[in-house]
């Protein structure tokens, strides 16, 4: 089931009537979610990603715009008739019911022709539980489960009525780091097995990048960029997207283009064809540095963090916007790291230029 969002907008009236400023949580969102894909809505808190998810779910009504599931316009369809499964951030498992009762709860509401016999309900619940590997825990109460297990129960409950679209609100935020890694693989597996179009919301770029077929980066209610994770990472459209994706984060420096050459401080570091003379933000991915004794960019060496396979070199440059410049280089090359200065050559495909005022990407 593809999901189409057309000019989707949500405006919240202001709380304080005197202040009179309404909040545009989502502004003119257009996106066609392809059938059977896993989509990550990504952005800092307050960017409207959860609002978008709740509008798809039908729990919130859009102020303007339309939502289609396949060819059906569901904008005015109430949430229970949309055929969605929703997993809440804190799971919202009913504490007084066992795992089995929780998973079966959505089935009990089916009416008329959809009504299931007791045995069918039990079978469906068991199948859903098996899919998320909690069939051993059917008689437990949610309070007797770990966070990861509760998460699985919540997913099973959302899947049991075979939704057309599965929505997950920050599915991993309540789990510890190890469990998070494991669970995100699990979500990926379940999504692949069921083939249900899935949308999930996260503020963690690593999470989104690692399992999504496509990511949507949002800021203050406005979609910044949509694409495959690697594409967005390799080709950010503006400074915000470049800064938001990647760990360690991208290094940002002030630079200047003069005569189709990029200067950082006094160093001419890169040829930039077709860019007019102007001040620019220069974004350099940590892996975009090459150690070279005769390198074009010189920085003051602070320290070297050894991480095994790679080495993270921390240095300083007066032009840097971020406090330090962090580069990741192969540990084989650290012989060149002596003295107080470190010199780099830059890989052109890992360097992005952004307009000094609009922060939009300048291609070269």
């Amino acid at each position, binding site marked *: 089931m593809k999901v189409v969002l057309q000019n989707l907008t949500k405006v919240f009236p202001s709380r304080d009537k005197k202040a009179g400023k309404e909040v545009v949580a989502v502004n003119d969102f257009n996106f066609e979610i392809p059938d059977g894909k896993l989509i990550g809505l990504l952005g800092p808190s307050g960017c409207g990603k959860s609002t978008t998810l709740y509008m798809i*779910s*039908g*729990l919130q009504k859009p102020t303007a715009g339309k939502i289609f599931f396949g060819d059906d316009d569901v904008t005015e369809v109430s*949430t*229970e*008739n949309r055929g*969605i*499964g*929703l997993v*809440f951030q*804190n799971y*919202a498992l*009913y*504490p*007084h019911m066992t795992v089995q009762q929780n998973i079966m*709860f*959505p089935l*009990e*509401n089916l009416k008329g022709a959809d009504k299931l016999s007791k045995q069918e309900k039990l079978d469906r619940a068991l199948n859903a539980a098996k899919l998320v590997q909690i069939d051993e825990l059917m008689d437990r109460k949610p*309070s007797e489960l770990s966070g990861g297990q509760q998460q699985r129960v919540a997913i099973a*409950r959302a899947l049991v*009525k075979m939704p057309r679209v599965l929505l997950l609100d920050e599915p991993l935020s309540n789990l510890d780091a190890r469990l998070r890694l494991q669970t995100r693989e699990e979500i990926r597996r379940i999504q692949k097995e069921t083939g249900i179009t899935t949308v999930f919301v996260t503020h963690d770029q690593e999470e989104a990048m690692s399992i999504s077929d496509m990511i949507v980066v949002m800021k203050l209610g406005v979609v910044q960029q949509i694409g495959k994770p690697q594409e967005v990472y390799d080709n950010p459209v503006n400074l915000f997207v470049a800064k938001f994706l990647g760990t360690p984060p991208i290094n940002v420096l002030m630079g200047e283009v003069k005569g189709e050459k990029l200067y950082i401080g006094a160093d001419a570091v890169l040829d930039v064809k077709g860019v007019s003379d102007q001040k620019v933000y220069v974004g350099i991915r940590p892996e975009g540095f090459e150690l070279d004794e005769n390198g074009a960019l010189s920085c003051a060496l602070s320290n070297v963090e050894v991480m095994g396979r790679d080495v993270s070199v921390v240095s300083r440059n007066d032009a840097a916007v971020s406090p330090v410049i962090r580069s990741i280089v192969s540990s084989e090359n650290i012989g060149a790291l002596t003295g107080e200065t470190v010199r780099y050559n830059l890989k052109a495909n890992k360097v992005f230029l952004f307009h000094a005022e609009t922060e939009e990407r300048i291609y070269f």
Partner: protein
Amino acid sequence: MVDSKQQWKAWLYLAPAIVLLLIFTVWPIINTVRMSLLENYKSLEAVRGATFQFGFGNFQKVLEYKRFVQCLKTTTLLCVLTVPISTILALLIAVALNSIKFLQKGLQTIFFLPYVTNSIAIGMVFAAMFNIVGLRNGLNGETIADTWGIINNVIMFFGAEPINWINYGSSYAANIAVMTVYIVWNALPFKILILLGGLQSINKQYYEAARVDGTPRRRVFSKITVPLLSPMLAYVVITGFIGGFKEYTSIVGVFGDTMGPAGDKGRLNTMVGFIYDALESNNQGRASAGALILFGIILVVTLINGYVSKKKVHY
């Protein structure tokens, strides 16, 4: 742990409370048990130096009293009628209040008014409302008897016969009906307050989850709201029964301290009323025995409540 040398300080700080508790709570309890176990104990005679035999005679006498059995019957009847009715009504009102935004605060205040109003005053108002015949002075100083109470006015407005609720010659059932209305109304605010607080602490996401699954409202109420509210429900039921067995002021409020309609004094007397009567007639032994029986009944009811709620209350 507090250093043992410092412990005297802790005891010093606790002393005022402990002394007061010992004098006004612990000793009276011990004394009640003592008096109840001394045959025919009367404190006036005890002061003169009389001695009393140890035994269970007080309990036996109390239980043999027809009056006591009547008190027990009235009290139990009122409890069994008012606790479920007031709990269910309070639950419905609390749910309704919780689901509206407009006027919520104002209505909350109105529902809370009985709680802050003197129960004798409320009783007098109820007595006036349920009155059947009132006397008033006519223009020429003559006495006119006519229907006075608003309830009977309403009944007559719909063309039915007025009912003698509380006056001379009224039936026991009518008396109990009036008391049930009064006690339920009086018990509502506290219960609504507790249940509304409970409702507001239920995570909204349970309801959103139920909505996504298309749960009908009735099922949301029975499968989600009531179970999640069960600790508060258990609390209001238990305190309701405890309060109900101690019913006394409400009867005085409506019927005055004759505890019954004119012509049938003491018909609506309760357990606490029985104990007061025994004290008034200087029968401390019998009063103590009555108090301990009341204590026993409340204890048993509370234990049953606790047992039931262990099975039905979640968490």
